[in-house]
């Protein structure tokens, strides 16, 4: 048994747990899911653990791009980004895979991870019932244990075990597979990596676009970046300006009389 690799794999599994949406230890989602759980940050962490920060970050940036618009609402996600980040980047690095291959690995692992994550949410129903009973009994301790501690056992196991094993055992397998992969398949993976953000973006659009005319805004944003200046800060300032004007239009319309004398 390769002890060094095992410890590395274990550490990666633990970070995958710390970055999960329901791990409380790093100030809940704030330091967990939204910081340690992001592929960009995972890239740095995996790089540090495996001893090649530069490669780690480069892969992190690539995986992050594919998941740039992944969001979690109402407890549901379309991919488990943290499994994807730690599992995908670590395996990619160990097998010296290209960014395209690493992204595809991440997507696959993210899909599997989502099943485990949903399984954990099912288990939690059990702890919820106990927490509810504790509330009915006026038992503060019971709430704390059943909300904060017990559910973390399942969460911990369901992340650390599979990720550690996958990283520890998967290296050889992935390396071999990579050697056998024909060039066309690599190209497909690269194409897929470029297509993937379209899914997250479409989900976001579905959330925000409430009428046809809103496509004008979407197009304006697209054209700004594609034609004028590929810089998100510049676009954001421009978008704030447009949003402010739209706000003025609506505010003025909604309450004409009272606002007449207002200083704006």
């Amino acid at each position, binding site marked *: 048994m390769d002890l060094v690799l095992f410890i590395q794999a274990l550490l990666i599994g633990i970070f995958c747990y710390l970055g999960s949406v*329901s791990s*409380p*230890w790093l100030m809940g*989602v*704030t330091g967990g899911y939204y*910081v340690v759980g992001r592929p960009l940050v995972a890239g740095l962490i995996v790089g540090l653990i495996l001893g090649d920060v*530069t*490669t780690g970050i*480069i892969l*992190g*940036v690539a995986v*992050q791009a594919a998941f740039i*618009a992944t*969001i979690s*609402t*109402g*407890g549901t996600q379309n991919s488990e980004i943290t499994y994807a980040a730690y599992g995908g980047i670590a395996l990619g690095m160990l097998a010296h895979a290209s960014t395209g291959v690493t992204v595809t690995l991440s*997507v696959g692992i993210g*899909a599997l991870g989502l099943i485990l994550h949903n399984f954990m949410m099912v288990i*939690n*129903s059990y*702890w*919820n019932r106990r*927490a509810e009973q504790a*509330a009915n009994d*006026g038992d*503060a301790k019971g*709430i704390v244990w059943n*909300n*904060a501690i*017990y*559910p973390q056992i399942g969460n911990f196991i369901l992340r650390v075990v599979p990720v550690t094993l996958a990283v520890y055992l998967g290296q050889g397998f992935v390396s071999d597979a990579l050697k056998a992969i024909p060039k066309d398949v690599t190209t*497909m993976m690269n194409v897929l990596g*470029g*297509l993937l953000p*379209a899914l997250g*973006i*479409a989900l*976001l*659009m*579905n959330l925000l676009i409430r009428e046809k005319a*809103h496509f004008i*805004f*979407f197009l304006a944003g*697209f*054209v700004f*970046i*594609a*034609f004028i200046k590929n810089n*998100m800060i510049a*676009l*954001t300032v*421009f*978008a704030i300006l*447009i*949003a*402010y004007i739209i*706000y003025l239009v*609506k*505010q003025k319309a909604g309450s004409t009389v009272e606002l007449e004398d207002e200083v704006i």
Partner: protein
Amino acid sequence: MPKLEKKDLRKAWRSWAMYHLSSMSFEKLEAHGFAHSMLPVLKKLYKDNPEEYRKALKRHSVFYNTEPQTGSLVNGVICSMEEKRANGQPIDDDMFHSIKTSIMGPLAGIGDSTLQGIFIPILLTICMGISNHGNPLGVLLYIVAYLAIILSLSYFLFMRGYTLGIHSVNSIIGENAEKLRDAFNTLGIIVIGGLAASFVKLSTVIKIPNGDEQLDLQKTFDGFFPGLLSLLAVLLCWYLISKRKLSASKVLIILVLISVVGVLLGVF
């Protein structure tokens, strides 16, 4: 007369900030996280009245879900209401319930789209730009900036919710707030358009024979509309999800098929 001190509020905020989703399930989501966060406050307010204490714990253990970081505002509001109730004002369970359920939806909407849909992608984009070639500065900037901004925001909103109490609800679900949300929506859609142009990458390798030379189709596209294929890809996904009501996983499979078939046909 029981009175909340700053340190009780801080404790309540910290519990919420940590344990909001720690026992998340499909049916309860942040229900017990909310109760957990109220513990230090309720203990103080109802320490001489175990029955009231029990009832308070119960009323804050029902289904609850909102964006956790901006949602700390609600916890602040509820703390102030519990304090008033403990001091004799007639605030019943229904009141607590209706306030929580009426705010949590809009707040989740604006919180998720502003943080996950606008703020995080923009911050990530900037930092990815810096870390493009492996430079750790970008990653560090992301970590520091996100933590500093969001933790202060969450803390600030909690304290403001406590100070303004029930009135702060208006600033979230009132008429003017709706217009503000509309403005944020506009902002969000523009930004997503930019994200699409930045991150979706699709280009064709088709070459068209033209006399002796070969016409590079992608170059022709780039000449009049850079990113045209990427735009089409996004619109396709949007159409499948929004009009054909396909699930995200099905769309993912379609994207895989497009990649495979496209490469086999020599299109991409």
